[in-house]
């Protein structure tokens, strides 16, 4: 069944809830592995670089964001890997999922208000539309 589960996470509360569900599914399937994908948003890089003294600090901060997700997965004792890539969140997740031929994508809904969603667009919506495998959107 779902051997390779892609968990798209940004460290937000929604993504932690998504991690919980991904872990639940993975713990039922022997030999499954969760790939935690963190996309460093192009549009946020300027701010990240500006607020860090050097490159190591940027990496550290990104890893720190994923810490709650990693802890949760460790507690649930599921196998996982972490991948950090730079790009536009929506398209990057779609590209990764389709190229790597993962079996399932788990993603948190972002819970923006109507105006924010109108301006920013919904990442999970893009993913649901364009990924070729089943997608679970966690509310």
């Amino acid at each position, binding site marked *: 069944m779902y051997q390779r589960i892609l968990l798209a996470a940004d460290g937000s509360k929604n993504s932690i809830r998504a991690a919980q569900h991904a872990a639940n599914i993975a713990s039922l399937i022997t030999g499954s592995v969760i790939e935690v994908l963190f996309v*460093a948003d*192009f549009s946020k*890089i*300027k*701010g*990240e*670089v*500006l*607020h*860090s*003294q*050097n*490159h190591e600090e*940027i990496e550290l901060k990104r890893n720190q964001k994923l810490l709650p997700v990693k802890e949760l997965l460790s507690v649930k004792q599921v196998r996982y890997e972490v991948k950090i890539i*730079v790009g*536009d969140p929506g398209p990057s997740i779609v590209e990764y999922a389709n190229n790597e031929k993962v079996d399932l994508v788990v993603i948190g809904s972002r819970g923006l208000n109507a105006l924010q969603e*109108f*301006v920013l*667009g919904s990442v999970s919506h893009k993913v649901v539309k364009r990924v070729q495998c089943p997608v679970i959107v966690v509310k």
Partner: protein
Amino acid sequence: MISAATGAMALLMVPLVKEHGLQYLFAATVLTGIIQLLMGVFKVAKLMKFIPRAVMIGFVNALAILIFMAQITHFVGISTMTYVFVAITLIIVYVLPRFFKAVPAPLIAIVMLTVAAIWGGLDLRTVGDLGEITQTLPSFFIPDIPFNFETLAIILPYSFALAIVGLLESLLTSSIVDDMTGTESNKNKESRGQGIANIVTGFFGGMAGCAMIGQSVINVKSGGRGRLSTLVAGLFLIFLIIVLGEWVVQIPMPVLAGIMIMVSIGTFDWSSFSYLRKAPKTDGLVMLATVVIVVLTHDLSKGVIAGVILSAIFFVAKISSLEIKKRSIGKVITYEVSGQLFFASTEQFIRAFDYTITDSTVAIDFSNAHIWDDSGVGAVDRVVIKYRENNNDVTIKGLNASSKKIIEKLAIHNDANAQVKTH
């Protein structure tokens, strides 16, 4: 990285051109290039990484505010139609990308609104009203200025400011590009390259430029990775001016002002507000000071220099606080010193001891301290000698290797006839 004439640099040049004329700008551009080239050769450019992030955040915010302020004269209090055009431009650039991304929204705004303005015969100020655009390829010439010290004295401050601001923005850009592409870049080489480019630019009648954050990010996002992408960007700009020059002058100013407002909103670091709350108070103060000084002087380099000095002072103040604990066991009194002992902390060090003690054993423990300079050694001398005057037995212990070395080299308290130095 895409380099060109940037807003930050242009803002610095305005007073020079106003007071002395265009030819001085070309000379200043060449000199800026020479300074940047030298900074690259002598590896000074790398030192830019010591600029605290509070100053960098202040720099970016001040730049955004200056860009915004520069637009105000182009749309405030001119006509109602001007306001309408600015508003329509802003709506187009912010809403359109939500539905349609193939063509950049600012381009759509410019084309649509320029056509609308021409067809409707609307009375709006255009780019052509500000100045002429000469549609010829530039040629080599030597700036027409007297070559003497007076000229140098005029252009040198501008060139220095330009060199600093240019390097700062370029290095910030290169850090961002580094992070986006996951590669490393050589900052000194970057400085040399920009220096050479500016020298050449000056001789062809251009203004000093530097790397541009916005354009470089767009370039990398669109897949540009090598030199070809930046070459194409430059060639396309030449093409625009030469072929489309007569259209460019027709662009209504409010449309450009609207786009520049978008640029300034994009440039501003909006997380600064949470930074102000979360970061140490001194960092927040440095950031605000940088912004305020830039906005008041319209000179980014002054803000940066003031910011760096201010944060250096705060750093010294922070690091110079010593902690000295007193413990007495029987007749032995031990002072435990922790912190950095140097010129800024000697006064606190000397005041911390109780000099009323007589006829006992005093130990000063430096296990958690470091003595940095001769002022520090002098302070230790002073304390030791004062205690000895009151017939105490003083020992110093726990010195680390380099503190020991400097004490052995400079201290006089082991000399039996030593007197307290009269400072």
